[in-house]
């Protein structure tokens, strides 16, 4: 019986996946061209690990450099070591110029320009007006959004105040505006009715400078004091607030604060809120079960964004450095597999924990669609989430097929945005990246749609 169900869902996954693949095939080239230069740069970086490291480090420091001399100097310093790994044109650029020559200035200019282009691909703008333009454009494409303010690390109380204020401004400034837009039922309604158009994602650690897992009570107090006004503003202006996940060390505390605050009388009956579960953590399953019990007790549903997790490199490096058990799956297929199991769990409890399935992976999404189909969940009963600037063709395709697709849209200054940008670049250039294979004709559809556990077997053999 159970096996029959699993087989049926697997067959549906394959069918849906192939169908999506077909749909994607038709739209590939035109979109591809626009980003040729960037893709080219990334291809080049991916080809050689040493170049990749130097390039990301260079991109990281660039916004801090105020003169073209500094840019040229850093460019040379970074690529000196890997000179022999560079294509000849790049080698010329690294070796020849004096900072003050026209060539030097041109080089600095073009480095800045390339890096700005890279940033603009993943970051929707620096100011609210630019963001508004970006989200309006998304909406024209039939896509919903959730906004994330990229900030510096919050190391002081004034910085935490500023973070809070930025969200208050965002909600009070943006919500009335977007609420005035003509309705688009596909993204403005779920199976229960109207849902907020203005949707923000925030990080609890940025709401209190002394956020420390060693002191859960004090941290919770500090966070909640700044979070409540944001939640009030959101309720007042019909906005949605999602609590993002960060490093593993913050996970339990983040969940705890989420549960505390949304059980308070003021927010207990409010369903326009959500949290994130990271499937690369083996603990995801227990956390979801715990959230289910908590939400049933609360009596008002919440949204759960299921992601694979964005801090994989950090978690593996840091746990090894500290001699702690690694909190994440070290094999990619296990994260994928867990993602599917938790997708199933969410779909089976979608009335309590409303599923927001966040992935760019064709297989993962096809699998989610198969479960929704199996359980007769309407398309409006769950949503797909994707990152701004990534997999735009997929997002379009899903929207056209009637899904609500929400684009996670970061905005903010470039310097503080760098950490986010580098994570995206890492993802896009990783060997396991689905995006990397999306245009790779050598990868077959069979391979892309293979069940995670089977992928592990084929790798082992």
């Amino acid at each position, binding site marked *: 019986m159970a096996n029959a169900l699993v087989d049926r869902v697997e067959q549906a996954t394959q069918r849906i996946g192939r169908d999506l693949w077909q749909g994607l095939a038709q739209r590939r080239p035109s979109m591809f061209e626009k980003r040729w230069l960037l893709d080219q740069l990334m291809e080049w970086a991916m080809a050689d690990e040493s170049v990749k490291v130097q390039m990301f*480090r260079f991109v*990281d*420091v660039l916004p*801090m*450099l*105020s003169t073209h001399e*500094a840019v040229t*100097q*850093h460019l040379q*310093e*970074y690529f*000196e*070591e890997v000179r022999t790994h560079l294509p000849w044109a790049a080698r010329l650029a690294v070796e020849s110029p004096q900072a003050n020559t026209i060539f030097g200035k041109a080089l600095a200019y073009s480095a800045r320009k390339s890096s700005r282009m890279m940033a603009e691909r993943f970051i929707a703008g620096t100011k609210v007006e630019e963001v508004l333009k970006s989200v309006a454009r998304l909406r024209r494409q039939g896509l919903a959004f959730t906004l994330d303010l990229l900030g*510096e*690390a919050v*190391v*002081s*109380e*004034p*910085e935490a105040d500023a973070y809070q204020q930025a969200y208050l401004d965002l909600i009070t400034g943006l919500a009335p505006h977007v609420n005035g837009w003509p309705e688009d039922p596909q993204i403005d309604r779920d199976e229960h009715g109207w849902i907020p158009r203005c949707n923000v994602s925030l990080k609890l650690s940025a709401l209190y*400078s*002394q956020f*420390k*897992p*060693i*002191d*859960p*009570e*004090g941290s919770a107090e500090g966070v909640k004091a700044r979070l409540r006004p944001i939640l009030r503003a959101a309720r007042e202006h019909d906005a949605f607030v999602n609590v993002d996940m960060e490093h*593993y*060390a*913050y*996970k*339990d*505390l983040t969940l705890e604060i989420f549960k505390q605050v949304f059980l308070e009388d003021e927010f207990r009956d409010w369903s326009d809120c959500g949290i994130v579960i990271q499937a690369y953590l083996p603990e995801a399953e227990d956390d979801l079960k715990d959230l289910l019990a908590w939400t049933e007790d609360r009596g008002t549903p919440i949204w759960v964004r299921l992601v694979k997790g964005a801090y994989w490199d950090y978690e593996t490096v840091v746990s090894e450095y*500290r*001699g*702690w058990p690694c909190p994440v799956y070290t094999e990619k297929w296990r994260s994928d597999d867990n993602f599917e199991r938790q997708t199933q769990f969410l779909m089976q409890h979608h009335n309590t924990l409303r599923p927001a399935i966040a992935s760019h992976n064709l297989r993962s999404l096809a699998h989610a669609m198969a479960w929704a189909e199996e359980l007769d969940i309407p398309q409006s009963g769950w949503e797909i989430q994707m990152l701004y600037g990534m997999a735009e063709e997929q997002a379009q395709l899903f929207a056209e097929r009637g899904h609500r697709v929400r684009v996670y849209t970061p905005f903010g200054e470039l310097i*503080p945005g760098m950490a986010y940008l580098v994570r995206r670049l890492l993802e896009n250039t990783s060997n396991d990246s689905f995006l990397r294979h999306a245009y790779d004709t050598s990868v077959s559809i069979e391979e892309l749609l293979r069940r995670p556990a089977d992928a592990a077997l084929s790798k082992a053999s």
Partner: protein
Amino acid sequence: MSDSKQPTPAVRKAEPFRNEPHTDFSRKENREAFQTALDDIAAQLGGEFPLVIGGKSINTRKTLASINPSRKSQTVGVVASATSDHAEEAIAAANRAWESWRYVEAAIRAEHLEVMAAEIRNRRFELAAWEVYECGKPWAEADGDIAEAIDFCMYYAQQMRELGVPVQCDYPGEENSYSYRSRGVCVVIAPWNFPLAILTGMTVAALVSGNTVIMKPAEQSSVIAAKLMEIARDAGIPPGVLNYLPGVGEEIGPVLVESPDVNMIAFTGSRAVGLAINKQAAETDPRQRGVKRVIAEMGGKNAIIIDEDADLDEAVQAVVGSAFGYSGQKCSACSRAIVLEACYDAFLTRVKAATESLKVGPAEHPATTVGPVIDQEAFDRIRDFIAIGKDECTTVVATDVSELAEEGFFIGPHVFADVDPDSRLAQQEVFGPVLAVIKAEDLDQALELANGTEFALTGGMFSRSPRNLQRAREEFEVGNLYLNRNITGALVQRHPFGGYKFSGIGSKAGGHDYLLQFLIPINISENTLRRGFAPPPDDEKA
């Protein structure tokens, strides 16, 4: 030799060693266990701790009260205070014990250390809790100190197992063997700021090398030292091999250092005391066995340079953490931030706000980042420095904790800017929560300022320019240079710790050549040729 044509390898890899992991306090079970330990120890405060000489517990007429710096009214323990007669007795006991301990196999001595490590591990939170009360160490800092004590035991045990094997250099007709002997009686004079780790490190290094030890802990951390004595005894260290001699440094210190029966002094503490010990130990008494060996870890006036292109998110956190962790009472603490003009204002603004946001409070509270300072003397000294700062420099942060200061020795974090590089505030070790910020025009000047003190312990630089980082590697005069990270929290074996100039004498604690200082190298050559006949060399026998 044909081997000499082999290219020298570009790097030599350190021997494998696994540091004791710090406790993950994001886990509820660990927080609860720590709180339970704190509650348990709270019920045990105020006990009495006698001297231990030659395995015998000795009560003294005079005693020292060890008090909780977070709460002056609370006595952590009443500790015996040794007289000079006790010091003589301890030296005699150690000398007697050396006659047998010196012949105990290196591997057996190493095993004793491993047993001690296991015992410390078993009692980890209990020992950390004692530190919280006795030294005002916040949770995570106390936990790190216990982990480091375990590391010292395990690492020196591992080192001694290797050093205990003689190096053979045999030729036909001659056997040459290079090996080590112990020095004799070693006096360990330890500070209170890493009350278990540093005391344990110096003590077990001496023990595992075959020396016997008189442990003179700091007055402010004598209760934790008594715990170490307990642990050593439980681990089977024979009577007299380790002696516990708390007391007033000024009274028994000179007796210990000047005794003709003492062969070595291992000291960690202030520059003034370190230099005095070095001088006293240099005097030779006709009765003594040889020239005394002194190793001394002294102070620092450590700087972090912030380059124009530094990642300020990281730099601000590292400077604040390094300056105010354990209230700046670490030899490795950052007491100067040298900031390039281009990012000076941005840096200072953020450091100011970040410092003002730190939680100051009793060490028992998990929220506390900055606890009290150790005692009244430290409190007064640091306040003097703050007065100089307010007088001579721009006060950026002056945290007021007068309410807390009625309860304990609390001094809030202070930041001063526009500090004259030659002023006392920029030159002398404060050993408290005081940071001096100095502006530099360029990297040349920054390095010159950084090197412009009599110390050379730790230093750091935040930069994303490979060339500038390289300059720091070559030109920054410190024993421990940290690039793009905080400058405290050295781990055994990964970051062997110690400085030069007036920061220390001797090689680095937790490093691969540390034990050699406690040993005397001996080479033995035997002519094996008799009547034209010699046994084959060792490697051919097998």
